């Protein structure tokens, strides 16, 4: 996983609440067996018209947002299906940070596993950042995970909270399976105890 330290880039405004993972990537595009290539179908039902041509009204089809690395949205972002194809599609498109008032739990988890930073900020701040994003290419945002601040184009710094363990894993690009396997003796001991107490759980 690619570490996330500091990101300065174009932010795309998506002023919607309840952006569900079916919107982020519809189920008919979940048939691939690798993690790559989902970016072209990110927001497919909005980005493309029925004949397959681009919908010029959708923000990610407009300059400079085709190169957006940050997405600003409203409440309950990523609700619905657990599909990790949603963060894979965002990442493949180039989005590495999403800022919203809150996120659905599974999507929030999935972001961290893929080097995407979800930043929770109050609605009124998201509205200010939405206005910044609407200014386009002249208004880059900086998201500094080390210092836990978002820097607006006018230089104002907005602090944000993030779980310390997740911050550590993200800053260092660490795979948490390797970390967990260091606890193998504790897992062995748990299983031995559980097998004795609840043998029906063991075939």
């Amino acid at each position: 996983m690619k570490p996330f330290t500091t990101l300065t880039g174009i932010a795309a405004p998506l002023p919607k609440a309840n952006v569900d993972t079916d919107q982020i990537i519809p189920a008919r595009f979940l048939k691939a067996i690798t993690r790559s290539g989902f970016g072209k179908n990110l927001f497919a039902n909005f980005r493309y018209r029925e004949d397959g041509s681009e919908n010029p009204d959708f923000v990610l089809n407009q300059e400079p947002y085709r190169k957006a690395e940050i997405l600003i949205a409203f409440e309950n972002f990523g609700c619905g299906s657990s599909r990790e194809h949603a963060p894979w599609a965002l990442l493949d498109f180039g989005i590495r940070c999403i800022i919203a008032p809150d996120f659905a739990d599974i999507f929030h988890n999935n972001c961290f596993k893929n080097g995407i930073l979800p930043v929770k900020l109050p609605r009124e701040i998201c509205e200010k950042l939405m206005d910044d994003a609407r200014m386009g290419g002249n208004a880059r945002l900086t998201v500094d995970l080390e210092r836990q601040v978002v820097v607006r184009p006018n230089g104002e710094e907005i602090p944000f909270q993030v779980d310390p363990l997740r911050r550590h894993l993200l800053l260092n690009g660490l795979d948490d399976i390797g970390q967990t396997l260091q606890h193998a003796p504790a897992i062995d001991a748990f299983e031995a105890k559980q097998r004795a107490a609840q043998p029906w759980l063991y075939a």
Partner: protein
Amino acid sequence: MAMSGQQPRTLFDKIWDAHVVETLPDGTALLYIDLHLTHEVTTPQAFDGLRAAGRKVRRPDATLAVVDHNIATDESRRTGIVDPESRLQVETLEKNVKEFGVPYIPLLDERQGIVHVIGPELGRSLPGMTIVCGDSHTSTHGAMGALAFGIGTSEVEHVLATQTLLQKPAKNMRVLVEGNLAFGCTAKDIILAIIGKIGTAGGTGHVIEYAGDTIRALDMAGRMTVCNMSIEAGARAGMIAPDETTFEYIRRTPYGPKGEMFDRAVAWWRTLPSDPGARFDKEVRLAAHDIAPQMTWGTNPEAVLPITGTVPNPEDEPDEAKRAQMRRMLEYMGLTPGQRLTDLKVDVVFIGSCTNSRIEDIRAAAAIAKGRKVAEGVRAMVVPGSGLVKKQAEAEGLDRILREAGFEWREAGCSMCLGMNPDKLTPGQRCASTSNRNFEGRQGPGGRTHLVSPAMAAAAAIAGHFADVRDYQPKEALS
């Protein structure tokens, strides 16, 4: 394992405490997973990760694989999967389960079905367990008195390799439903009414325990319907305390514990219900007699109304962002403010999905369909949740009743719930669906989904428009 005796604990607390392998310094728990259900869509990248790192599946005996999302639900499944990408995904699962020694139920096995139907039905999903699956509707298994939740593919890989997950504890929320359910109302109406009340993010960060005498009176299928849609309220999981109804259900399953082992298990399961005085961070109460048959009108499950309602007017909504969202919903759904819900014509009726495809659901639909006919121009389909449900329904003659009424009788699978297999809506089609999500494009691009109970869906099929099931009671007894 934390011992009781001091603080009263909730059902969730007890299962959580019994599965903490270790607590890391920051409070994150390494949580042991008792059952890992897997399917073709969210696993290929996880098995690839294991292969790349030279890792094995730690407990194949605690893992079960089945195909459900991608497959056709007509006879074509017997001659091979037509869509090349779907076929590759299914073949990839078959290759992976073989290589990693994971038990697998193949497409043409009579036990095949939707992962959230077969887990409980086979007796694999049990009270007190931690259960995960790369699918958000894993919350269904909470009906057994288990802690069951959906995970992403990276976490699937983590569980395959370590049989654990890194988790922060959730908060406790209790939804109490009390009193007798009114005539014509079902578990589906209860959960839709709950989501209508608390909203699509009402449960975020929480595990919901459904309690109260209305919930206690539900059969296991009804409890599964309720827990299934917990994720639609944003909750991490939904659960219902195990009781005699649960134990009797498990006693009849093929792979549940038997004999002395069953008695030992029941003794432990009886200790699981929330202690009197256990603390909940949030509590919501509903009176069952206030719940009427429900129907969603918008594009998320909180946009729901009693069937007697009319399409709301966005201009009555004071909040500007919500007003804009409502306008968009009406535009997408092709609705006008003030329209009566019962005036909306249906093109397609879908009875199925992990929410409502169990034998009880099919009986409810057949009871309405018996002696009646599907309205002209309506395509109505019934998709049993598993091969075993299908077999049971056929043994009861329900397939014949439904076919005679003009319903299609299909093979088991996820079908038209999610628009990734051949069963899809076409743009503009309006569907009465017993599934769980009415999102834009969920059942196919441009499709318009209204969520209802199986009986309400059957009534819509007969009427040709949405109808109040209370006006469509069974003409004849089922047998």
